[in-house]
């Protein structure tokens, strides 16, 4: 599995190189090549995941190293889907970079085998993990749009006319995409947490609520909900919404990584 991860990192890194050449040389041939490389990487990524699933006889999304393999896969697959609707090289470049980052983190984490008990094979748990991870994928891409919005806003305000501003889509489009992705992520996160709570409530008798990861997850849910309300009220300017969105995603990352080091509730081994 580690060797496959390493190979996938190389494939995705190749696409990053093609994107960079394409962006700086302003040649579409390279960005198209980069996309094709992502598709090849995504294909092998999926095959490896399915192979792992077949070998282990369960869906390998229980330990952090498994999640760090599955989460980038979801990001890559969503990137491929998005590419069919609009081709936006900077977004693809960012999502692949995130995926590489996640998989490199995985390389530094020992592979773990969960102590499989029947409770972990519950469909509820599976839905909880998949829904939550899917919402994280939407929030990650939404955060990329927020970052782009902040950069674009800065460049426009300071009248910097360069390759970056030429490649970025309009502020309105970035804001719209950010909102749309949050709109898709929010119900998924809500359902993921709800189903996870029902499942954990049944097995841990509601003690799990004292776990900081669980609390932070609900904090994140509330923050996205708040963001949604602020957007609807129209009281915040779009830059404020973008900054808050970025900050909320930072909370997800803290929750995702730090809690694994500091708390034990989500460690199934």
């Amino acid at each position, binding site marked *: 599995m580690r060797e496959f991860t390493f190979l996938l990192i190389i494939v995705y890194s190749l696409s990053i190189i093609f994107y960079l050449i394409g962006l700086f040389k*302003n*040649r*579409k*041939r390279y960005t198209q090549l980069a996309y094709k490389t992502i598709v090849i990487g995504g294909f092998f990524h999926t095959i490896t995941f399915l192979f792992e699933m077949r070998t282990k006889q369960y869906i390998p999304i229980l330990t952090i190293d498994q999640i760090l393999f599955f989460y980038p896969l979801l990001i890559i697959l969503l990137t491929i889907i998005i590419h069919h609707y609009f081709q936006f090289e900077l977004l693809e470049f960012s999502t692949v970079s995130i995926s590489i980052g996640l998989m490199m983190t995985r390389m530094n984490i020992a592979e773990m085998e969960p102590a499989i008990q029947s409770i972990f094979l519950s469909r509820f748990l599976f839905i909880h993990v998949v829904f939550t991870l899917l919402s994280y994928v939407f929030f990650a891409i939404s955060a990329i749009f927020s970052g782009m919005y902040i950069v*674009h806003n800065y460049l*426009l*305000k300071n*009248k910097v*006319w*360069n390759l970056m*501003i*030429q490649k*970025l*889509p*309009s*502020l*309105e*489009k970035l804001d*719209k995409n950010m909102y749309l992705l949050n709109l898709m992520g929010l119900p998924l996160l809500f359902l993921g947490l709800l189903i996870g709570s029902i499942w954990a409530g049944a097995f841990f008798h509601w003690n799990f609520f004292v776990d900081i990861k669980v609390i932070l997850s609900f904090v994140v849910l509330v923050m996205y909900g708040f963001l949604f309300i602020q957007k609807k009220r*129209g*009281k*915040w*300017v*779009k*830059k404020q*919404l973008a900054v808050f969105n970025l900050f909320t995603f930072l909370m997800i990352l803290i929750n995702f990584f730090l809690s694994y080091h500091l708390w034990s509730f989500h460690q199934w081994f």
Partner: protein
Amino acid sequence: MHVMVIGLNYRTAPIEIRERFTFEDDTIGIALEKLKNTKSVLEAVILSTCNRVEVYAIVDQLHTGEHFIKKFLSQWFDMDKSRFTPFLDIKVNAEATEHLFRVVNGLDSMILGETQILGQVRHAFLTAQQYQTTGILFNQLFKQAITFAKKVHTETGIDANAVSVSYAAVELAKKIYESLDDKAVLIVGAGETSELTAIHLFSHGVKQVMVANRTLDKAKELANTFKGIPYTLDQLAIALERADIVISSTGASTAIIDRELVSKVMKNRGDKPLFFIDIAVPRDIAPEVNQLENVFLYDIDDLNGIVDINLKERQKIAIQIEGWIEEEVYVFYQWINTLGVIPLVAALREKSFKIQEETMNSLQNKLPYLNERELSVIRKHTKSIVNQMLKDPIMRIKEAAAEPEAKEMMEYFKSIFALNEELIKSNPVYENLSKQQNASPTGSIHWLLKSRAGLK
């Protein structure tokens, strides 16, 4: 035979001459036919735009061709040759071919890298095809040039960024708003540039236009052009609240839109951004306005700065394209060089397949019990043998056609495969080429070899 381009354009001729030299769409067919029937002209394409009129022709002799095309132009436009000859730009062979590639890519246009010319060249070529004034050479050359230009535009995006102030303003507006369809534009003052910018925005989908002016009558006058709403400058705050894009160009000596006014307006706009374009000198909008959140202010210097950057970017891409053009012209000449061997190749293939067919007939006589399916399999395989045997010799002779000793090589080729003149000349390919070029196929490459030497 030679490729020739004779014409005039915005660089070589003044407007007084250019405006007389225009081929109308409804009479261009007659002009093409007349040109084709002109002595020495074998193929012809006429490109007529507001900035250039060019006659592309394949002529059998340079001087005769030039003389008769000039005569044609003189007669067609009813103008003495001496009046327009000094303004003519004449290019021949490799230079003419290169010129076409530069023109179709917008490298010779007034606005570097514009793409409208590609459509115009395509239209000119299709019209010439419709009137059957193109032949083997121009069909290949124009198709290659058009395909190349399309590829270049997609690859480089040379026309992606604006190179005029009014277009730069539109481009900036598109950086803020996804679509301009539902946006409202406010024109403050009735300057020429602001009107032009408004026209560009209008053509990019803006539907609602407001005009604010010191006098309501003048505002009404301009507003009527866009079916817009007129305001006086006293009503500026109301108009600003409704606008998304503001173009200001008054003759005021001090700023008429200050931070305080915009700050008040922004409070009533929710999270809607406001884009100011200040074209006036002295400026109409206080620069501090740009410090407000959700407000973007660009003055004339900012816009000129963007235009300069974009222009430099286009020039950089243009240099890159020039390099590719050299390669494309070379490819065209390579193709031309193979023209001489096409009748030989066709004759060889005809001879080989005749042998294959005779073998099949003999086989059928000797093995009458073979059914249709078996015969079909054998036919397919014998054809495959012929094709495979011919593949390398054909490839080699095509390569050799581009070499200086091409003539000798072709003689060897004819001799080795025993391709006699009768066989070559009876081939339909030879007939077509001869008809088109009015010369022997091998002879037609002489001018090309000369041109290629110039290219290398």
